[in-house]
């Protein structure tokens, strides 16, 4: 399975959750699969997807917030996994699409290919850390958790032919803010 199909699978179960999506192909693919006002598309600042999601989750505990991040971006800002655990927002789900590659820049290998991100995550103390393939994501979304959830989705490298998102940064921001 490549990223496009993984995002399709995730979006099959989404209802009214807020989504922050990682820069590059993940954003373009999400836009192509299911554009919605509750999607915040990152057009810059690689590495900060997980942190933006944390800021929203902490500021609005009544909404479920999902960051769709990648292994390369998580490695760029690994410390935020520690921050998220220490702040412990129960309304936050971080999904890591782990293809072991920097997909948007030509599929160069990341260190996640050899270093198991889920092991790192568990060692930080996350109570709810899962492999996507081993859970029922629909049921997970329906359940209320007492701590943040991190899901690693193991996939193969590969990009779709999704076009550039036609929205301006301000359009993305304004329509997203109206949904919070």
């Amino acid at each position, binding site marked *: 399975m490549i990223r496009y199909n993984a995002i399709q699978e995730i979006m099959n179960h989404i209802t009214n959750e807020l989504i*922050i999506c990682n820069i590059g192909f993940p954003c373009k693919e999400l836009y192509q699969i299911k554009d919605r006002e509750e999607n*915040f598309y*990152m*057009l*810059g*600042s690689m*590495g*900060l*997807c*997980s*942190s*933006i*999601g*944390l*800021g*929203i*989750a*902490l*500021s*609005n505990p009544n909404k479920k917030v999902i960051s769709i991040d990648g292994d390369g971006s998580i490695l760029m*800002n690994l*410390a*935020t996994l*520690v*921050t998220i655990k220490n*702040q412990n927002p129960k309304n936050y789900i971080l999904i890591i699409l782990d293809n072991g590659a920097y997909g948007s820049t030509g599929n160069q290998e990341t260190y996640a290919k050899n270093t198991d991100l889920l092991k790192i995550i568990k060692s930080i103390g996350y109570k709810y850390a899962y492999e996507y393939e081993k859970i029922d994501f629909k049921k997970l979304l329906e359940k209320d958790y007492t701590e943040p959830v991190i899901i690693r989705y193991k996939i193969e490298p590969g990009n779709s032919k999704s076009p550039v998102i036609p929205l301006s*940064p*301000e359009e*993305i*921001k304004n329509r*997203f*803010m109206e949904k*919070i």
Partner: protein
Amino acid sequence: MNSSQAIYEGIKEAGINFIVSVPCVNLQNLFNLIKKDEEITYIPVPREEEGIGILTGAYLAGKKPCILMQNSGLGNSVNALASLCQLYKIPLLMIMSHRGTKGEPVIGQVPMGKATPKILESLNIPYYKPKTPENAKETVKKSWIKAEKEKTQVAILFEISYWKGDN
């Protein structure tokens, strides 16, 4: 009024209610004031760039965001400031202890101290340098008003001499 209290009062009058920080020795009294304030969500972060991401999320969710850091952290934040905050027009208040200025005892702080204003200028981020607590309180408040109105980031640099008012 002492140096930290003045900044704190400016923060309160501005209505800032979400703060991230990375420590600087000059900011310790200010941290203690903010930690005690139940109206402010206070999130210590390991690295400033991460803090800019968290603040952006907080702003999207309706909060009034501010980062407290040493000017060295500006260097760690440049890409996030440009390709996140400027790109999406996210208002942000940046309160910085400006090390490497007159009276600096640590030689390692000097290069970044000199570069700091130039980095802000290159990003077109307006900045102010209040010298007294009275001026600081007003500047903090007005800077946030400017940031919010113009959807921009505004920096306030507090040089080493400013913090003598805490002693």
